[in-house]
């Protein structure tokens, strides 16, 4: 070797990698790692603010928040989300592009399992993108030539890929997926067949609702997803935790069911092990944003007061619904002394997130060498079993009312300590659907579903729910001309040299 021929010491080189099953797994984990990214770039937070559950909030000079809340254009808005999802897609694409070169030998089942997970992740990232932005540039392998100007495709093309990926994921994951109770703790967070079936149902419901289509691109019909949901309900080993408040650390006290309890069908994993390192993104960065602004009050730890909860949500719960105080902190009802509430925070409502609010006490990150801004660690359950039950109720409503009623009752019963007097009778019509959607709101509030549940009921329903016709800082006007889509970041449009077109209304 000549004096000038060197290879990197700190890094591996692509040509030496993607050879062994271990390499393949590392490539897959890199795609998983993107699930943890970001607060501002997290669809969970931005869609909560856009929905009728929360306002923008934050500090006086925080920008971008009221813009989400009020559907106003803002410089390079959603850039973090755009980047996050394409990073995840790139990594899944790299994996899928390289997997055939990996020598699995005797363990070809691993190849199927990993491929299933990668396809799920690609579908998951695209589903977030297509919900936020509609038709987006569709990449199914890493860009290697120098032409980076990829125009948007139609939303349908994106959904076609999502449906195909999820179907394949289900079939690839079927041989290796275990019932929840048999899954070793070290595999919590890994994608299972159950997660893929549940996500496919969610995609189906959103696509057919929002676009008003009979099926999912001819690939998946209602019966397919009804069967998939039934499979999860009956065979996954997942189930409801016996009491709703046990689901979240902030409401459970000592009875906490755990970060990976049986109700979590697909759960994004967070840790405090970043320990103040801002480059490591394995902490839950949404939590500090939604926490009570700047003060540690009661058992809660401090946050930034972003996405203050709309009083409407608090009022929507019946008084003895145990989800009410497990979902929302009412500063007044919990008798918290909060003197700086209105000087530090904009759009102060008196209500904060209880689910996911950062917690004080000895477990708080900065007591353990972390930073409370980035090292919060409560997992985010993307798909809970209760969501699966409600999807089951929705899918069976017109075909098997008794089954729909059963699934629906299980949610209601738990919310009222098994006091069955709070049951509602479902009907095979719009009223029945309305009851289910209302239950989804109450059950899944602040978990990133409300905005999409409104949109899939139509822009009129969404506008009616979201508009807040006051004449003060809480005034919100949904702009139906945007079709509920988010603003594509301006810089990305610029860099595409005009091949990416801004969404209508922005």
């Amino acid at each position, binding site marked *: 070797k000549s*004096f*000038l021929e060197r290879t990197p*010491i*700190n*890094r*591996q*080189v*692509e*040509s030496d990698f993607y050879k062994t099953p271990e390499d393949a797994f*590392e*490539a897959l*984990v890199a*795609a*998983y*790692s993107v*699930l943890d990214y970001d607060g501002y770039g997290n669809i969970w937070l931005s869609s909560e603010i856009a929905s009728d559950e929360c306002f923008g909030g934050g*500090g*006086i*000079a925080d*920008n971008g928040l009221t813009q989400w809340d009020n559907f106003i254009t803002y410089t390079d808005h959603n850039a973090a989300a*755009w*980047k996050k999802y*394409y*990073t995840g*897609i*790139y*990594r899944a694409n790299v994996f899928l592009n390289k997997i055939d070169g990996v020598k699995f030998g005797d363990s070809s089942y691993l190849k199927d399992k990993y491929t299933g997970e990668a396809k799920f992740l690609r579908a998951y990232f695209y589903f977030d993108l297509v919900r936020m932005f509609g038709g987006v540039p569709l990449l199914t392998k*890493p*860009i290697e030539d120098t032409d980076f*100007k990829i125009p948007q495709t139609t939303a349908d093309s994106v959904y076609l890929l999502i449906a195909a990926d999820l179907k394949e994921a289900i079939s690839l994951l079927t041989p290796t997926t275990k019932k929840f109770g048999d899954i070793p*703790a070290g*595999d*919590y*967070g890994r994608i299972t067949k159950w997660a893929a079936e549940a996500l496919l149902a969610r995609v189906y419901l959103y696509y057919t609702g929002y676009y008003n289509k009979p099926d999912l691109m001819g690939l998946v019909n209602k019966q397919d997803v009804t069967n998939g949901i039934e499979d999860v309900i009956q065979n996954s080993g997942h189930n409801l935790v016996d009491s709703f408040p046990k689901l979240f650390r902030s409401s459970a006290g000592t009875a906490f069911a755990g*970060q*990976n309890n049986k109700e979590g069908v697909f759960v994004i*994993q*967070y*840790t405090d*092990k970043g*320990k103040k*390192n801002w*480059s490591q993104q*394995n902490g839950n960065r949404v939590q500090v944003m939604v926490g009570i602004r*700047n*003060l540690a009050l009661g058992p809660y730890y*401090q946050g*930034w007061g972003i996405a203050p909860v709309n009083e409407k949500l608090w009022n929507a719960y019946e008084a003895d619904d145990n989800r009410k105080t497990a979902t929302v902190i009412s500063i007044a009802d919990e008798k918290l002394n909060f003197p*700086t509430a209105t000087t*530090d925070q904009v759009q102060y409502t008196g209500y904060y997130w209880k689910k996911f609010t950062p917690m004080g006490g000895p477990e708080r990150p*900065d*007591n353990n*060498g972390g930073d409370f*801004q980035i090292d919060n*660690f409560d997992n985010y359950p993307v798909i809970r079993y209760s969501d699966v039950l409600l999807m089951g109720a929705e899918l069976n409503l017109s075909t098997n009312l008794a089954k729909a009623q059963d699934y629906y009752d299980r949610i209601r019963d738990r919310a009222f300590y098994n006091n069955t007097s709070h049951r509602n009778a479902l009907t095979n019509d719009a009223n029945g659907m309305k009851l289910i959607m209302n239950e989804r709101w109450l059950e899944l509030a602040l978990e990133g579903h409300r905005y999409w549940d409104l949109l899939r009921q139509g822009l009129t329903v969404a506008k009616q729910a979201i508009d807040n016709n006051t004449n003060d800082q809480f005034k919100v006007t949904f702009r139906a001309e945007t079709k509920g889509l988010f603003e594509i970041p*301006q*810089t*990305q449009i610029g860099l595409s*040299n005009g091949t*990416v077109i801004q969404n209508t209304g922005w």
Partner: protein
Amino acid sequence: TVTDPGGQPVPSINITVQGTSNGTSTDETGHFTLMAKHGDELLVSGIGFQKQRIRIGDETVLSIKLVEAGNNLNEVIVIGYGTQKKAEVTGATARVSGADLEKTHSTFALQALQGQAPGVQVLSNSGQPGDGIKIRIRGVATNGNSSPLFVVDGMQIDDINFLNPADIESIDVLKDAASAAIYGTRGANGVVLITTKRGKSGKKILTFDAYYGWQNPSRKMDVLNAKEYALIQNESWLNSGKPPYYQYSQAQIDSMGAGTDWQKEATNKNAAIQQYNLGFSGGNDLSTFASGLSYQKQEGVVGLKGRSYYERIGLRLNSTHKLFKDILRFGENLNYVHSNQQGIGTGNIYGNSIRGLLNTSPTFPVYLPDGSYAKSNTTSEEMNPIAAMDYLNQRKTIADRIVGDMYLEATIVKGLTFKSDFGLDLTYFSTNTFTPEYDLAANNKSATTTGEMGLYRNMVWNWDNILTYQHSFGDHKLTLMAGATAQEYNGFNILASKQDLSTPDFDHAIIDNGVEGTQKASGVRAENALNGYFGRVNYNYGDKYLLSAILRRDGSTRFGTNNRYANFPSFSAGWVASQEDFFPKPSWLSYLKVRGGWGQNGNDRIGDFRYLTTLTSAYNGYYFNGINATSQTVGTAPDTIPNPDLKWEATEQANIGFDATLFNKLNITFDWFNKTTKGWLVQSKLPDIVGTGAPYINGGNIVNKGVEIGVNYQSNFGEVHVNIGGNIAFLKNTVREVPNEEHIIHGSSNVLSSNTEEFYRIQNGYQVGYFWGYQTNGLFQTLEEVNSYTSKTGRVIQPKALAGDVRFVDRNGDGEITPLDKTQIGNPIPTHTYGFNLSASYKGLDVSLLFSGVGGNDIVDGTRAQDKSYNNYSTQILNRWHGAGTSNTIPRVTTGSEDNRNYNNFSDLYVHNGAFMRLRSLNIGYDLKTHLLRNLPLQQLRFYVNGTNLLTFTHYKGIDPEVGYGAESWASGIDLGYYPQPRVISIGVSAKF
């Protein structure tokens, strides 16, 4: 023997017998032998000297004393792998003597360069001792690293902060490509050649120099006192829709005094600066030596007592030896430096201590009665800036550095020499950081203590082998040089920490004192190498016509096989018109040389292996089982898209100039240059859909054009010796091409405060890092003015504005204010930089002054973080708008939530004229030896008083106009709270035995 006016022998002087071809030239010792008859006339000529005719008498031994044609023409200039007489130089170079550097009493050599050479700009990120100093030669030529190459006694290095100015004999700056081409890939930003002090045979000298000085901030920014602050805060709440007296009641305001002057509390009054240098030098016919020992310590003018300083102990050993007659010579230069540094936070908005001092509300004290730090009574978000300075800056850096080289030189046959020079630059530095438990503000606290230790080792070796051949025949003089060089860098660092220290203080911030299980560790290693071949031809005909050509071929590990090697040629020529026979002599024009040159340089300063697809596992992992995971599962992904065709950045430069001497006293140097950097190494900005790091590509193009003029006048008026010098450089910097779709390289956002937009960028047709934002056109005095500010179609342009808000210019006339209305509103790059000095001596007394300055540039005043409405203001806010007609420049105060975005929009309100002129140094000295105490057994005993930065002339209202800060290497002129340059008064003594 032929000697110069100072009696030193001069080699290479031509002596011919008039009217014959009989001639010779002098050897190294100035001797010559020539057969001549009685009555012959000898013609003695040499470049830089006036021609002489000597009629031969009966003598057999002649002693000829030459007369210089102009000042300094016989100075030997270092030109890279060789030396040349100034008179023979055809490129654009500048020389600063060690004596001129010393006069500035700087701790760092680069500081001392300021204002001393045309076209050399010195910028500092901060005035804190030991903080980085940026130097730019002939402007910013790249979006990457614009720092020149430093060569210390032949050893190439990246920074010279370790050097004591007192050890420097001279600094030569190679500015144009024709000169710097010999350094090929490393010369694109110019080359700074430093020669440390050498011994001379026959003289033994012991020197001692000491000074002690008192430093204070040169300026302070006027901010509101407590009462003014409270009134302004109440007014801003009122303007933002809250009731009167929202934050402070009248009673509270009445009870307020001046409050806390944070700048004053943080000033380290009369901070000491001291320096002691001891030098020994001497030698005999066989060996010479120069050794030195020095100690310097400079305290910072801002910071807690004893917590901001830079301290350095240096040791220098230079010697030369003749091993075998005049045939084999050997020598070495060795510098060892040990330094300690501690400081406060400077730089960007995070942890910038100065920014904290300027922004914190004056309404609470530093300490509570019990001696602990007080907390803000304004908001839970605000920190006590003194406490922050204390808690967050417990970090010291200790560095040990050895820079040296050893060489062997052999004269193979007459005129042909071979030199092999091996150099080494080894740096070890260690850091030690303590994070205490603290609770500064709602978002700034730590519940654990941390001790962190870091170790960094960087080593570069360099081996040059050079063959030089010199030959003269008749009027022809030829110097050929060929050489090869190899260089390798190897570095690693380790950083580790543990928490919950058993003894929680700075002294015990040792990893072993932390708790098992809390450890964090990281470490990297890197290497790169360079291999070059070079040759140079210098041809001199009759000391009239000078030619020089250089070719260098360099290879680097930073490029793939497609483009690993590149060639860098240069040519230059000079014509010494005054040597021509038709040139009338004597004349008022004693010397005139016209020069011109063209050449190419390269730049390889990007990271390693950018041409490959590399993978990284850093921050790509995941924790299955979340908080209960025992460890991270490793993830690995490509971190960049490769570019196997990546190649050198090339700088092409043409230079035309002249050197002239008028009346034997006035030297003028003039240069015009046109420098184009092509194919920058830039990380192309790709759409994020790519999903990973964008590749580095070649593209882009910057032109720096300019003129440099240096003037120097020396004369004696009786016993008064006077020297007056001045220099000025004009520079025009234009970006010609940015290689992406938008033709823009964007600056960062959130530089001025969180949530601020990008405001500087690189764009086709503009200066690098120009300021980009909205133009304003005064303030709306009334609502009627708001409503009458309409577009052509009658649309109200700023419908949400209120009286007292800024009127932004709707440049594109679309009836609304959008980013499309942004334009150039400032330029951070000075159009001219200058310096001038005056010195005079009379008997033992000497006086000197040095001024330097810049003009044509703008500064962005981002000292107030506008995102926090509770932040304090400069007193200029007292002239704000508060009713029709009260102001047309400073908008009404608000809590920042106003719809018009007066400050959230970056506009020309932020941009200020950055021109300034400074009295850099003033020296008055008296040498007792020359007059009063002639019988003292020493050669010099000089006492002196020095003042540094005594006067500053500027319109800029911030702490210091000398702001060099920029968030990117190519950005500058952004004031986020600048650590001021100190004003120093010092006294000292120099003795020579």
